[in-house]
């Protein structure tokens, strides 16, 4: 479902979804072409969660994200060119090529740390919330992390403290393990948790939680509204588990565009949906889902959707060009920024 928001805002959410999807597709393409930018993770399948949640933040709210950050950064307004440049290790990247995909950080947008250590950002995000409280500021802190982070001890330590000190922090756990069993062989890992319901892990600490379908824009909007209100009212932390299906292209090594470059016309033309990955295109793909919902609600026509998409594609295209043409950093710059 769509949140009850004006058309412009819905369009904006949709635009962000497309931006993320087209960015990731381009990235996978660039890697195929032989770009060497280390192991990376894409946000395909989780776009709606990020697009809805991140735009609800105020400019001075703080955000913390993980190895699977591209969607979060783009959803909050990161420039695709500078992000891509960072992923390609270029001097013009957000981190001057020092971070890469694992640590890409548009600091000007209120991101404070992108940590590739599973669970690493959980205490950090609570810390920013602690700062807000101590300095009597209004900002809240949002912590984005995967289901796997709940297997790390840093998570419950932080839940305890965040609850004890009523910190204005939102724990947004993106559980992308749906459709996976336990971790298999050297496969990319899925949740390995004895807890049947991950949100119950915060219940003993008295932290309220919501379990939502992360591809349902209305649900994300509703859960975030509640959590933000709670945090801003000084009532303490909240936990949201946004469930999404694991995209088939998430491979242990490199993401693989198994489901193809997204064809938005599949949203209204079922005949275009191929037999392979039919579930994905019909039910799980959040970009196709929100396209259908927007059509049905009459916010945009088919043509308008395709037009928006081509705008987005050309924006991404410019970003790709910018990143490709950007220079590599000066080797000597490796010795800068060790200390402030």
């Amino acid at each position, binding site marked *: 479902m769509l949140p009850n928001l004006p058309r412009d805002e819905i369009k904006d959410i949709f635009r962000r979804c497309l931006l993320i999807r087209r960015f990731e597709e381009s990235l996978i393409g660039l890697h195929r072409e032989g770009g060497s930018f280390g192991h990376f993770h894409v946000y395909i399948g989780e776009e709606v969660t990020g697009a809805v949640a991140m735009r609800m933040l105020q400019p001075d709210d703080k955000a913390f994200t993980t190895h699977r950050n591209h969607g979060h950064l783009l959803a909050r307004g990161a420039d695709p060119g500078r992000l891509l440049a960072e992923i390609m290790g270029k001097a013009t*990247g957000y*981190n001057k090529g020092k971070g890469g995909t694992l640590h890409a950080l548009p600091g000007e947008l209120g991101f*404070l740390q992108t*940590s590739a*250590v599973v669970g690493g950002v959980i205490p*950090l995000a609570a*810390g920013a919330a602690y700062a807000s409280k101590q*300095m009597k500021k209004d900002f809240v802190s949002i912590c984005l992390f995967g289901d796997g982070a709940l297997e790390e001890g840093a998570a419950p*330590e932080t839940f305890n403290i965040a609850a004890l000190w009523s910190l204005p922090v939102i724990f947004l756990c993106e559980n992308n393990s749906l459709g996976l069993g336990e971790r298999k062989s050297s496969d990319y890992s899925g949740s390995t948790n004895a807890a049947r319901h991950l949100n119950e892990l915060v219940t003993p600490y008295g932290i309220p939680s919501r379990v939502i379908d992360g591809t349902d824009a209305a649900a994300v909007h509703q859960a975030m509204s509640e959590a933000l209100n709670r945090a801003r009212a000084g009532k303490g932390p909240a936990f949201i588990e946004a469930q999404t299906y694991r995209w088939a292209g998430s491979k242990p090594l490199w993401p693989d565009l198994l489901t193809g470059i997204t064809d938005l016309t599949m949203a209204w033309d079922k005949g275009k949906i191929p037999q392979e990955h039919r579930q994905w295109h019909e039910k799980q793909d959040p970009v196709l889902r929100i396209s259908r919902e927007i059509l049905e609600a009459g916010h945009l026509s088919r043509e308008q959707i395709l037009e928006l998409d081509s705008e987005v594609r050309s924006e991404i295209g410019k970003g790709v060009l910018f990143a490709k043409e950007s220079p590599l950093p000066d080797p000597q710059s490796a010795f800068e920024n060790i200390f402030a």
Partner: protein
Amino acid sequence: MREISYAEAVAEALSEAMENDPRVCLLGSYFFGLSPRRVLMDELKEKFGPSRIQDTPISEIGIAGIGTGAAMAGLRPIVDIATASFIFQAWPQVVNEAANAFYMSGGQTRVPVIFHILHGLRGGGAAQHSHSPQAMLWNAPGLQIMLPTSPADAKGLLRTAIHSDNPTVFVDHSLLFEVKGPVPDGDYRVPFGQGDVKRVGSDVTLVATSYMVQRSLQVAAKLSAEGIQVEVVDPRTLVPLDKETILASVAKTGRVVVVDECHRSCGVAAEISAIIAEEGFSSLKKPIKRVTRADVPVPFSRVLENAIAPTEDKIEAAVRSLVS
């Protein structure tokens, strides 16, 4: 100048910093361990209340991360880990988040956090409570490391740390708490990266850190009576390190003993020795000696602890071996 104890100097620095800047706060309050000086912390708590001096659960990785994240968002927290051995619980946050944040963000995220640890052999701490993790921390770039040894240094370095935008580890030693010394008035600071020659001598250089400076001064005083003039160099901070002061002393004496409380292998003394062996080689008249904690987990019984510790006897013997 006023003479006060090291513990009082630390407490003064904390008190003044908290008065002057509402962003300065403490997470954890075993700064003075279980020593009698912990009354100083009780006084600070009285003065500033729990909103500024926050007791915490037994959750080192959580608290270190919260201090780090708070620093990223503009607070200037001092995270008190107390017994240094338990910074291991916080290791991922200290060495892989706080230390890396500024660099890996390309200079965007500043982390003005201080981690306070009480290191070293304290008598009966046994294997799990006696660590001196400063060598491991030195191997993690991005952290500043201070190890004051006098009241004036303690106050002046702590002030510098509090005003710094970088993560700093305050490597403290409870056996220093009662050391007395003159402390200047006013807002003086001791800059990082500036070593101090704690005693001038011409025959042998003793490079020592933290509590080992006190031991080295004792040995120097004793040997002086016999005509052996020992120079005691205290780097005061490991990161940044004042190599020049160390190398200048070695250039003068040609003989050097490095004294340090870490376990021997890859300890602080190893690094200082390696620097001298590379950059001060031409002035060396004798092998570089190290007096360190032995590569043995710390035993409980005092006689055993003593056997593995860098004691005054061992420092003295090392110095003598270079001048005989």
